[in-house]
């Protein structure tokens, strides 16, 4: 007989062996460029730029708007403008279903989010595209929101800043998508005549009909480092010319070298750069109502 008697049953495994891991999902993010494990909080602080190698992660539209405006305050515009299905387009899935899935996955009403606010003391009308909504593609709703943004800037004598991230025109809306290029460019023509500033910021990736319309029409064209920017996508070009593309082709630095951009700016300096440009371009004698 032992001195001690067991009153309670023996402790058995409470947690299954398979589940005995330290949960780090969502706490650490691996940099897709240098492979460094980055603490999420640290990454947020560095505006989703890898502190180790400077890789720019893709950034959500709302997050970017908040970081652009003074104190993160802005008035959202035209949130109710959304895609319909004018062609009743159907491939492996219906376009209607794709829209619903995109809304659920991105938490956004459309591939562009627009807002009005103050940046460094200047009245700014900003639009930000988001790749997570059908590849940031431009359909009628995107075209309408950006056109309204420009028209508002003209009416209220403000500047326009647009962050592009897009695969181009949205083919599920056919010719109507293509016509958004003309619609927005015409509005930018008016903004130009009104002598109000337009800063275009291209982020990874900006291609197709978006590049071939408003993205390239800035008074000043800026890009984030190493962003893919072009008219035709690299795959289409490779198929056409049947050869491999040189390294760095269609990246920001390549466009800068070929005279298509004014500057390549690190995201962490973006807001300050925009303010500096607006200090020059927002001339009181021109912006007065």
């Amino acid at each position, binding site marked *: 007989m032992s001195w001690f008697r067991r009153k309670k049953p023996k402790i058995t495994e409470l947690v299954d062996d398979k589940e005995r891991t330290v949960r780090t999902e969502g706490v650490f993010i691996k940099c897709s460029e240098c492979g460094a494990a980055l603490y999420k909080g640290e990454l947020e602080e560095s505006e989703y730029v890898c502190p180790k190698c400077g890789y720019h992660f893709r950034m959500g539209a709302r997050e970017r708007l908040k970081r652009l405006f003074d104190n993160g305050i802005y008035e959202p515009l035209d949130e109710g403008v*959304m895609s319909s299905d004018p062609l009743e387009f159907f*491939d492996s899935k219906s376009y209607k279903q794709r829209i619903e899935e995109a809304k659920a996955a991105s938490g956004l009403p459309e591939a562009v989010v627009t807002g009005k606010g103050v940046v460094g003391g200047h009245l700014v009308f900003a639009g930000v595209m988001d790749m997570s909504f059908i590849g940031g593609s431009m359909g009628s709703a995107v075209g309408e929101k950006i056109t309204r943004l420009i028209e508002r800037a003209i009416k209220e004598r403000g500047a326009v800043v647009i962050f592009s991230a897009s695969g181009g025109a949205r*083919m599920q809306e056919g*010719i109507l998508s293509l016509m958004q290029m003309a619609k927005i460019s015409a509005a930018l023509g008016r903004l130009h005549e009104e002598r109000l500033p337009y800063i275009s910021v291209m982020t990874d990736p900006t291609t*197709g009909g978006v*590049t071939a319309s*408003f993205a390239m029409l800035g008074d000043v064209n800026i890009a984030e480092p190493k962003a893919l920017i072009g008219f035709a996508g690299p795959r289409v070009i490779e198929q056409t010319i049947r050869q491999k593309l040189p390294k760095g082709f269609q990246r920001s630095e390549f466009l800068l070298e*070929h005279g298509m951009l004014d500057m390549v700016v690190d995201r962490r300096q973006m807001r300050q750069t925009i303010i500096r440009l607006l200090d020059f371009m927002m001339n009181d004698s021109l912006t007065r109502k």
Partner: protein
Amino acid sequence: MSDKTAFDRVQLARHPDRPYTLDLIGKIFDDFVELHGDRRFSDDAAIVAGFASIEKMQVAVVGHQKGRDMQSRKARNFGMPKPEGYRKALRVMKIAEKFSRPVITFVDTPGAYPGIDAEERGQAEAIAYNLREMARLRTPVIVVVIGEGGSGGALAIGVGDRILMMENAIYSVISPEGCAAILWKDASFAPKAAQALRLTAKDLFEFGVVDEVVPEDDGWFVSDETTSSLLKRSILKHLSDLCLLSTEELLRLRYEKFRKMGLFFEASF
């Protein structure tokens, strides 16, 4: 006439015997002085531009140009312009604006050329700049889609006060083959994509993108004079209408024309 599928029309629009810009210049205009070069890099043979006269009226003509035999096809780069082509087009349109002469453009391209050199010289910028400048060009602009309206490469000379389209021409955001390759992962689904994209003249007229569809007999071939004379009559009618408007009115209406394009849904909160 109406029993053609969308893909039948795609093939008619690409038919090698369909009139190209230079054919039409010979058929519709009394004479033509071709101008060359963009003054920045080179001359692009995929676009022709110059001065012409039609019924004693002086107009500028700009259009995509394809070739017919292997040699000329190559020389014209299959009608796919590079940035210098679009810059030449705009240069000639600006001359027309300067001397208050209307502009007539003919659209017929598979698309803007997707190549390394075109990207290096700013294909996207060249197209974008044309869109903005054509929207505010202070002279009447008539656009005629005569064959293939290939996306941004077509639109880059396609912003105007009137957009006319031949019955069997097509105009699309992407080629049926390209669309099929992306969405169906198989280019052989092109006929299906052509149907889904709604790229025929009738579709575009219904969407309010095209103002008038010029009827063709059963296709349109270089030898066919009736269709070309119908097109000529239509161009003349629109020219005389547009010449009655003041420049301010013209520009306001042109802006509104494109402003209205697009169909979306607006929820109120």
